[in-house]
């Protein structure tokens, strides 16, 4: 019995004059109905490219997509363009990062939401409008019957994102992909939007993929977490496993760079050194090795020469990591944790 969404060996390659950009290179994951998968990684790690592939948004002229994307047993990559179009927005919907640029400035919010409904339902404009108002009300827009005729620029940032969510959910999709839904919003609004997403997920029983580089969002939302680096999964596990016992130095780096507002002000923010790698000429072996501060603990040139497999971690079978380190759990507890959360270590002692 396969999962509701099962992605196997997904590759998205962009041929360019300088060579092939491997934005996603052999990504596999599963997601059940009603569950949330968080995909984390820096900019350019392939998060958005992979999710756009699930929606079939890549143009055939510019991208080569291969592998399998099984949604409820159907391989989306084998569908014709027209078949995929019929599913887009209906079975799989997407919420984009910056709702100001993601909504058309020349059409009213109601027009754009209603349009999403009318593509997949043979209803009158009036009915679509009524449905749009209903959805705007559901996502918490006050006076929806009046605001439905507003233009996107008349909405606040949070309201625009709510409207985007209304647009995404209007057809009751079984899979919702939220691409950095809170990045463009201020913190108080972020929390509201996340709460709303959680409520709606319960109500609609959708599977949700949430793409983010904010580990706070992951902690709040995700059942499972996938950490991506240079187009590959480098660590997979439940939210708890990833946040409490990460076994991959890249995940440690992500955790270290989260500011801790409750800690004392002397604790320093530790950024990951260097920049994300070029996807045109990714580093040999483990793509993270040029930035890894724990490389000296791996014997020989293993990190430079060999790409580690995605293998089970030390604690559980579901927790997978792609790293050569022999005892990552111990290193995390002894070296990384004291730096990022000294009070926590203190408490445990």
């Amino acid at each position: 019995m396969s999962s509701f969404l099962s992605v196997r060996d997904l590759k998205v390659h962009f041929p360019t004059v300088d060579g092939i950009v491997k934005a996603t290179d052999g990504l596999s994951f599963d997601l059940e109905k009603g569950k949330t998968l968080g995909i984390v990684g820096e900019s350019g790690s392939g998060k958005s490219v992979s999710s756009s592939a699930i929606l079939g948004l890549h143009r055939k002229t510019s991208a080569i997509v291969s592998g399998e994307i099984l949604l409820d047993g159907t391989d989306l990559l084998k569908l014709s363009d027209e078949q995929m179009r019929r599913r887009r927005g209906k079975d799989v919907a997407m919420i984009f990062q910056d709702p100001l640029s993601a909504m058309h400035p020349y059409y009213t919010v109601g027009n754009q939401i209603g349009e999403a409904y009318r593509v997949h339902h043979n209803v009158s404009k009036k009915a679509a409008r009524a449905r749009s108002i209903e959805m705007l009300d559901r996502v918490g827009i006050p006076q929806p019957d009046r605001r439905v005729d507003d233009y996107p620029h008349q909405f606040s940032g949070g309201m625009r994102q709510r409207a985007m969510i209304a647009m995404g959910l209007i057809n009751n999709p079984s899979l919702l992909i939220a691409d950095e839904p809170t990045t463009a919003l201020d913190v108080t609004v972020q929390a509201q939007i996340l709460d709303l997403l959680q409520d709606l997920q319960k109500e609609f029983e959708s599977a949700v993929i949430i793409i983010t580089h904010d580990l706070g969002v992951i902690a709040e939302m995700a059942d499972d977490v996938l950490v991506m680096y240079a187009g590959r999964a480098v660590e997979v596990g439940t939210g708890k496993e990833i946040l409490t016992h990460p076994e991959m130095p890249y995940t440690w780096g992500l955790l270290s760079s989260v500011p801790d507002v409750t800690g004392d002000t002397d604790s320093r923010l530790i950024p990951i050194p260097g920049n994300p790698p070029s996807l045109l000429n990714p580093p040999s072996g483990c793509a993270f090795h040029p930035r890894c501060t724990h490389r000296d603990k791996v014997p020989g040139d293993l990190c430079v020469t060999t790409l580690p497999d995605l293998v089970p971690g030390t604690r559980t079978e579901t927790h997978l990591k792609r790293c050569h380190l022999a005892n990552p759990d111990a290193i995390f507890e002894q070296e990384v944790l004291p730096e990022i959360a000294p009070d926590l270590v203190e408490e445990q002692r």
Partner: protein
Amino acid sequence: MLAYVIRRMFVGVIMLIVMSLVTFVLFFASPIDPGRYACGKNCSAAQIKQTNKSLGYDKPVIVQWTDFLQGVVKGRDYPDDPELRAAAPQLVTHCPAPCFGYSVVNTKTVNTLMKEAFPVSLSISLAALVLWLFFGVLFGVIAAVKRGTIIDRGIVAIALVLYAFPAFFIGLFLLKFVAIKWQLVDVPVYSPIAEGGVGMWLTSLLLPGITLAVLYMAGYVRMTRAFVLESMGEDYVRTARAKGLKSRRVLFKHSMRAALTPLVTLVGLDFAGLMGGAIITETVFNYNGLGKLAIDANNTNDLPTIIGLVLLLGTFVIVANIIVDVLYAVIDPRVRVG
């Protein structure tokens, strides 16, 4: 909105006044003696002086300019001589307000000259506008949709070649081969609607219209292509695709609407400029439009006509600018509401 338009028109009038002053000063900065031109080659120095006096060229530039402005507001008599008016009123031409001057060379008021020439220029511009806008946008969109293919490359290459041809070459080519040698159409002679009807009018505009349109079309193909391609990369177009809209609807409703907005500005200004006279095309086809009037006025140092034309063209551009800005507010709700 109304207040905005009024404010813009007020600024426009000030600009026109400044333009008229600059034209006056530039004209008198040249070493040419206008009286000599008006009087003729065999005039004696005294006769030239007399001519200059009767035309008012002997007064200081600034006085001439204020006289001109007065004429625009109140109208003027040419020559403005009370004695002559009393003795021989048939020799005095009255030019009612707004009077833009009297062309001695043509022995007509500038208003009459422009009134005769304007319909010709307007007709040619309209014909060219329809052709270039339709084909320019059509081929531009096709090139954008088929980007990277042989169709796209072909359209862009042809547009570039056409763009490189000067107007007189295309005009002469059409005149010499299409009209005279192959006799596919009659040699074009301008025919007003009032005389030959709409059919004749359109036929007479075919070749001049094509000549002008080819040049503008080439530019519009490239611009439309660039604007459409740019809008296709916008986030909201991705959103439209993510909704599952058909690609045709994504193109026409979401992509094109945004892409064609900047074209409105260009069309407005280009059309306004053309209405002021397509100098080369009118000369090649010998159509007596504003462009040809301007060339003739320059060749005969006909100051009043030059000033009249400069101001008329300036008015077109200023009015077109205001119309374009108002249109923008109609198209783009962000400008409209706030």
